[in-house]
């Protein structure tokens, strides 16, 4: 490979805790715990995991909608610290976000034209006279006609709404777009259209994506790098091709076995995972051990660090080395 390009976004040791008050008692939930990611310009980094694993919180930390309790974010070689309005503007011009719910994320009383013009006027990117023309250009680049500009969001279909969200996100010509499950709220029939639109825009505009999803088939289609999160931690991180060929972490395998494969001849023989995510259930050791089919004594004693098993492939599991060989899997499953 050629010399690696400097990362566009580098997060190290991000941590975010929330205080929850329930029945008088204050509980702390660590939504994101010591997460480090790197995003190469022009590539897509996918974060996968069950709901409640901290994916969306990570997205909000990266877009600075939430402030991390610990850790550092470096964007394009500059540490991000939003202390003033001008820093906020400069950052949000480069980093935009597409939300999951296309019904809730568009201001209901704004017409589409105003929605797409909003980032232009916030960042003073177009004069009052040029706005209309620019909005029409942006709309056409997401496959919408200029007549859409006069409509209200509730007059549009889900797919059209998500196109409007994407139009709004690309209006400032950002370099990174954080997509928080951008197609999971859509009908299956329009998902692929939106995904292909995102891929086209990435190619044409040189965008990088931080792509939050729980849909492995989709991630396989678009991601360059995959990070699997479990209860606020990254448990496996690998180039997409490596990950989908040979996932190492038991949780990754479980995720993969639970996503349907359209091939009747392929036997689904990975271990099934029981139970549900329970935040705070485990205070010591590996947090996946209560659901892990391969857990041993060591897993209860210490939390496995995220260590490389191959170049670019990191796994947080005490048995990652053994899992590299097929023997253990087959032995376990008979």
């Amino acid at each position: 490979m050629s010399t690696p390009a400097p990362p566009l976004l580098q997060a190290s040791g991000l941590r975010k805790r929330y205080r929850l008050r329930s029945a008088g008692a204050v509980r702390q939930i660590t939504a994101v715990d010591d997460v480090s990611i790197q995003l190469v310009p022009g590539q897509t980094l996918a974060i996968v995991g069950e709901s409640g694993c901290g994916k969306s919180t990570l997205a909000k930390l990266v877009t600075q909608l939430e402030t991390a309790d610990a850790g550092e974010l470096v964007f394009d070689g500059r540490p991000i610290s939003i202390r003033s309005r001008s820093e906020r503007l400069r950052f949000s011009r480069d980093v935009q976000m597409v939300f999951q719910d296309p019904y809730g994320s568009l201001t209901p009383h704004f017409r589409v034209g105003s929605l797409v013009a909003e980032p232009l006027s916030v960042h003073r990117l177009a004069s009052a006279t040029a706005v209309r023309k620019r909005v029409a250009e942006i709309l056409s680049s997401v496959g919408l006609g200029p007549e859409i500009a006069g409509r209200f969001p509730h007059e549009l279909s889900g797919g059209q709404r998500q196109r409007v969200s994407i139009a709004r996100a690309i209006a400032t010509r950002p370099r990174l777009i954080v997509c928080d499950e951008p197609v999971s709220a859509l009908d299956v029939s329009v998902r692929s259209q939106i995904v292909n639109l995102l891929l086209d825009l990435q190619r044409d505009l040189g965008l990088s994506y931080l792509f939050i999803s729980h849909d492995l088939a989709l991630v396989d289609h678009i991601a360059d790098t995959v990070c699997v999160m479990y209860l606020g931690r990254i448990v496996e991180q690998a180039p997409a091709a490596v990950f989908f060929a040979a996932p190492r972490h038991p949780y990754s395998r479980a995720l993969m076995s639970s996503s349907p494969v359209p091939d009747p001849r392929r036997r689904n023989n990975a271990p099934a995972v029981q139970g549900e995510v329970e935040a705070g259930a485990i205070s010591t050791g590996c947090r996946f051990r209560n659901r892990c089919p391969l857990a041993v004594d060591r897993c209860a004693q210490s939390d496995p660090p995220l260590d490389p098993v191959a170049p670019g492939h990191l796994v947080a599991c005490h048995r990652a080395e053994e899992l590299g060989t097929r023997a253990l899997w087959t032995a376990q499953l008979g």
Partner: protein
Amino acid sequence: MIDGRVSLASVPRRPALGERLLLWVASNPMLAIGMAMLTLLVLFTLLTPLLVPIDPLSISATAKLQPPGWEHPLGTDELGRDQLSRLVVGGSISLRIAIAATALTAVFGVALGMVSGQYPAIDIVVSQISDSLLIFPGVVLAIMILAALGPSELNVIIAVFVLYVPRVIRTVRAAVIEYRDADFVQAARSLGASDLRVLALHIFPRAIGPTMVQLSLGFSSAILVEAGLSFLGLGAPPPAPTWGGMISGAREYIRTAPWMMIAPGAIITFAVLSLNLIGDGLRDMLDPRSRAAGQ
């Protein structure tokens, strides 16, 4: 700002103006009746000086306590002053006070409500003060304020403002709190919009409806409070004619000259009714559920 050009062929024919007006009246009868009544009232206070050019302050020893007739359509009071003229001038004083108080309430209520909904540190101060003002029964608080400041038109405005601004603050604050974590607000923030922009453009328009309802109800209460205060002698000082003052003065003559009390009583009822109808009508129009629940 931006309006789409849609080909005209695809747009269904727009009903004629009269037709649309009828439809609207049929679907919002309370609002329509209330607005018609308020228009009548405003026209009455604006136009009658042209029709009845009698000085409301001019005293006549020969014409005192006259029943309604051709010369004095609503009769005269114990000093021979024309009741209709006094009603008209009193109405313009009432409306002036109510409009000024409502405008003040709108400006400060919306501004303080937005700020306290957005910033918890400010909210603690603003909410403590506005909640403690809400503890007092309305008229008692108004009497306290006027007793402290002395009776005058300006002080009545201040009293009504202090009475009603907490309700508007609470309404706007509730809307800001409801929407400040909404997805579309987060989206606006993430694209770089400032707090002020988010509040003014993305959140406040969602609160306009309930705020309008509060303001129209506040307006009618302003008229009532003003009348109550002038009845007690705490409103605009005599000889300025006020509705409340006229009722107060009519008490002694209720057996001999009942028209003195009936006319101002009726017009206060009319004014308050019209504004309450507008308030209820607005609420129904903006929230169809409350109409369904009421039936």
